[in-house]
């Protein structure tokens, strides 16, 4: 591609303006503390902890080295939505309402003040984009080409969804809870991000209507003022900017529930015709680990190295993490460190003592208490969901 001076300077300009941040709103339109959280000093025009995948609507994944921290900070947490956040004036406490309707005894409209009257509860949980790792599927799947960082671990605080549902009285014919947020597409012909979860997940005591993230009010990019948190499930259920809950007999209709976020069970070969009856919604996460340190491409000195990472699974518990430094011929157990909470990730360490200089690959794989172990490559599916292939990094061991 030929570049003249004008295109370079324009590119540099755009890079500055849009390069890292919530460019839906462009630099300057919104205050950083609104976008990223009160404690953030993050400037809107570039976030070194994130890799922008889509400038508008803004989608960005976390650089894996940020996962050295047990909790992923709000301004380093991956950002994903289909349409970008709603205008901030639509979600102020004054105008915002949560509507609960459908198959309920008493439809309700709740303010933030009303919600605060329910018992407060916190859950530390991994939230992960259903398409995290899509870039590794072969053949390629269309969609945002997430690599390793569309995931994070945060402390979510709010009220139990089940308490709110008990308050309105759910009728016995209600089998699904449909969620809708305040975000809207540019064109009215684009389907809304309508999602639903089965009633069993909705009334699970750990399913939250979250108002806070890591002790702060939810930042705009993470769903202020209210988002659903379904611990153990993928992020497509964790609807942001939540305004409407509808109890109904059937799953939500529309593209984002009926077509997107589904995968064939059992898996099919690429190119095979898909039977709609075999397409299951993306729900629980699958067992997965990441190598956080060293970073891929690092040059290491000969001598002991601490390999560190994180591992998590869906509705279960990670029981082992193994590391291989010989291309998967042999595996050794890593040691868990730090906190052990049901839906959070586990941090792990492995001391590696390379004895020869040269290029090496380090692999990590986790196993959960359902006996599921990370495969070398996850089953292909047309949407590129649920990637949990063994994580690997390349390092160079130097002789001196």
């Amino acid at each position, binding site marked *: *591609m030929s570049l003249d001076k004008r295109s370079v300077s*324009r590119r540099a300009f755009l890079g500055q303006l849009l390069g890292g941040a919530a*460019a839906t709103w462009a630099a*300057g339109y919104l205050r950083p503390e609104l976008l990223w959280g009160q404690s953030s000093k993050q400037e809107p*025009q570039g976030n070194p902890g994130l890799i922008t995948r*889509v400038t508008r609507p803004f989608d960005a994944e976390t650089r894996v080295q940020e996962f050295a921290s047990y909790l992923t900070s709000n301004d380093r947490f991956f950002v994903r939505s289909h349409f970008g956040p709603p205008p901030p004036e639509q979600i102020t406490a004054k105008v915002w309402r949560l509507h609960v309707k459908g198959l309920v005894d008493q439809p309700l409209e709740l303010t933030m003040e009303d919600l605060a009257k329910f018992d407060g509860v916190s859950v530390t949980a991994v939230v992960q984009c259903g398409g995290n790792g899509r870039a590794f599927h072969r053949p390629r799947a269309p969609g*945002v080409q997430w690599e390793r960082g569309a995931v994070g671990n945060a402390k979510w605080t709010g009220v139990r969804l089940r308490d709110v549902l008990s308050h309105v009285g759910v009728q016995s014919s209600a089998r699904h809870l449909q969620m809708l947020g305040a975000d809207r597409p540019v064109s009215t012909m684009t389907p809304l991000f309508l999602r639903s979860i089965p009633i069993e997940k909705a009334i699970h005591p750990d399913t939250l209507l979250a108002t806070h993230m890591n002790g702060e009010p939810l930042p705009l990019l993470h769903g202020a003022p209210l988002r659903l948190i379904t611990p153990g499930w993928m992020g497509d259920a964790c609807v942001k900017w939540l305004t409407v809950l509808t109890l109904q007999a059937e799953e939500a209709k529309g593209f984002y529930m009926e077509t997107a976020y589904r995968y064939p069970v059992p898996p099919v070969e690429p190119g095979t015709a898909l039977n709609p009856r075999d397409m299951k919604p993306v729900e629980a996460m699958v067992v997965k680990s990441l190598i956080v340190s060293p970073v891929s491409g690092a040059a290491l000195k000969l001598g002991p190295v601490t390999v560190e990472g994180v591992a998590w699974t869906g509705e279960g518990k990670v029981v082992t993490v193994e590391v291989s430094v010989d291309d998967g011929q042999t595996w050794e157990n890593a040691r868990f460190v730090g906190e052990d909470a049901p839906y959070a990730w586990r941090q792990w360490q492995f001391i590696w003592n390379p004895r020869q200089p040269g290029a090496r690959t380090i692999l990590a794989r986790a196993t959960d208490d359902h006996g599921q172990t990370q495969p070398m490559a996850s089953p292909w599916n047309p949407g590129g969901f649920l990637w949990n292939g063994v994580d690997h990094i390349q390092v160079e061991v130097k002789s001196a």
Partner: protein
Amino acid sequence: MIRLMRRWGHTRPTVIGLVTVLVFVGIPLVIGFADDRTGESTGKDSLPSVSDEQDSKRLLMARCAVCHSTDLIVQQRLTLPQWIKTLNKMERWGAQVSSAEQTQLANYLAARYHPGASGSLEQVAQDSLDAPVTQPAISPGMPEHPEGRPDHGQSLFGQNCVPCHGPAAAGGMGPKLAKNPILTDERRFWATVRQGRGAMPAWSAMLNAQEIADIQAWLKTLE
């Protein structure tokens, strides 16, 4: 501008004002895509056909980038049938892209962003910013800034700008344009609409000078 960004802390209020006006005025004006099926003349008629590549890039900006940035497009590695399917879907979802344009874009995209195409995702981010700088669409004999016709401007605004700037130009994803000072700043108004700024794509491939003047004239009538 870059220097401004670096001195953000000191100049934030100035920059906020500037960026809000410049960036958003542009975006909204463009957002709706001119509809070449209305029978109205659009800037597309005056696109030079010197280069298919440039032409396709302009189409991408005009038909696709109004809703999402092009980095989403160039990171894909799809076959021709997949690109066609995607373009069909986008049309159903509101992109005003004709059959002929879909064919042109599918061929353009499949030739560059196919499953065997190389390029790291980092490179992709660069590519996406390499959007063409479109030239003002001025037909021969047309004055550079023609006299605007507010009645025409209202319908053009409805077709092109409402999704971002809202009905009655009261603002939405893009800034409020009614009574916006940029309306009387000729140089900024025309530069922003034609060349785009920030998240707002360039409209000169889609709207000709008369149409831009019409929209400006209508916006000036708003209270």
